[in-house]
């Protein structure tokens, strides 16, 4: 009895180290970060693109209808949180292109860039996607573009078989990736990623933790 209790406690304590549903997976760096820490000038104007959220079936990789899984709410919450966190970090010229003074042509480019967020977050971004970003540059100020991409895998739930004692965990996950790109050069100023091992829901307490962690490595230069 005593042995079992002690053993259970030991295993539980050991388990605490591997049970976290949230893992920061990116280094929080930019292109030049190998030599210098990734810092962004505080005077930079940041366009926060509409985040791209894609839902897929974990088993079959078939794309699922995002509205069936709360996609629009997640997109809105991500954009709102990003603006709020960047503002709180001291970047005061932060806005979504749709609500900005950008020209109609630039707003179209911003929409195209948003739709290409999955290409922008890649290690080797698609040149076409970078072309959209370059179109958002301004001649008289430093401009950066924030792209966010979330791949949500919707998998089977956990199970328990009372006859055999076999159990399984749910196989859903949400992989958050964010990148800040210099609109003049397309250079990567900062990037980070966080893995959440569940379907992301904006009203879930884990969501705020994930977004905070995602931007935690972004440092400003005054």
């Amino acid at each position: 009895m005593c042995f079992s209790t002690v053993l259970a406690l030991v295993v539980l304590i050991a388990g605490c180290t591997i049970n976290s549903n949230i893992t920061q997976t990116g280094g929080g760096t930019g292109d030049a970060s190998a030599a210098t820490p990734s810092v962004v000038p505080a005077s930079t104007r940041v366009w926060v693109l509409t985040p791209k959220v894609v839902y897929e079936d974990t088993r079959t990789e078939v794309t699922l209808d995002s509205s069936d899984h709360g996609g629009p709410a997640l997109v809105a919450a991500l954009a709102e949180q990003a603006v709020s966190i960047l503002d709180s970090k001291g970047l005061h010229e932060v806005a979504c292109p749709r609500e900005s003074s950008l020209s109609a042509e630039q707003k179209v480019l911003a929409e195209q860039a948003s739709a290409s967020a999955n290409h922008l977050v890649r290690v080797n971004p698609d040149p076409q996607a970078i072309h959209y970003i370059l179109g958002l540059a301004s001649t008289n100020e430093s401009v950066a573009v924030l792209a966010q991409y979330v791949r949500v895998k919707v998998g089977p739930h956990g199970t328990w078989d009372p006859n055999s004692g076999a159990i399984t965990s749910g196989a859903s996950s949400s992989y958050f990736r964010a990148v800040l790109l210099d609109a003049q050069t397309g250079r990567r100023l900062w990037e980070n990623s966080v893995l959440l091992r569940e379907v992301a829901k904006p009203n879930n307490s884990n969501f705020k933790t994930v977004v905070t962690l995602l931007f935690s490595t972004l440092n400003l230069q005054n």
Partner: protein
Amino acid sequence: MKKQLSLLLSLASAALLLTGCATTLPQPLHSAAGFQPESMDAVYILPVVDARADKKLSLNLGGLQRNMASSLQQKRYKVVVLEDTNLVAGITDEDLKEPTPDWVKGIGPSESRWVMALAVGELSRKITFGSTGNAEVNLFIFDKQTGTLVWEDKGLGRAGQGGLLGMMMVSMMDEAAIENAMNQVMVKFPKKPKGT
């Protein structure tokens, strides 16, 4: 009349029995039109790509590659195991899933035509009142002659055991899950007919 009816019933039962015994392989996620894995001569197996977002758990990539090679050999495929990890350096999940013809033509040694790549997309273990493990693997076959992805499948492995015993087995759960995922993929791979 009775005899004829009995003969007809026997024939129908035999037909049903034969249909029931015939095994059809489950379909992979993707198989290019006209591609038959059995037609591959030598299969070049790239080192396993670690495409996990979370790489905290250690993973025996070499062991996975050897297991896959052995599984293919049992199905009578001629395999060439490529051990130089530089061959997959910088290869991402996206490269494998959305390959361009130029990219495909550049992978593996120049003499190879059929190149196989295994990517591990997820590996985790969890402890509750028991322990569980989850794993995701994707298997890709590229035809360098056409520069295309000709076959792809995915395995989602889950393992777990409840209770105190299960809790003590936590360190084995991710291995069990990945083995389970690999088996799901390999079972869809057809056996090569004898003498081909």
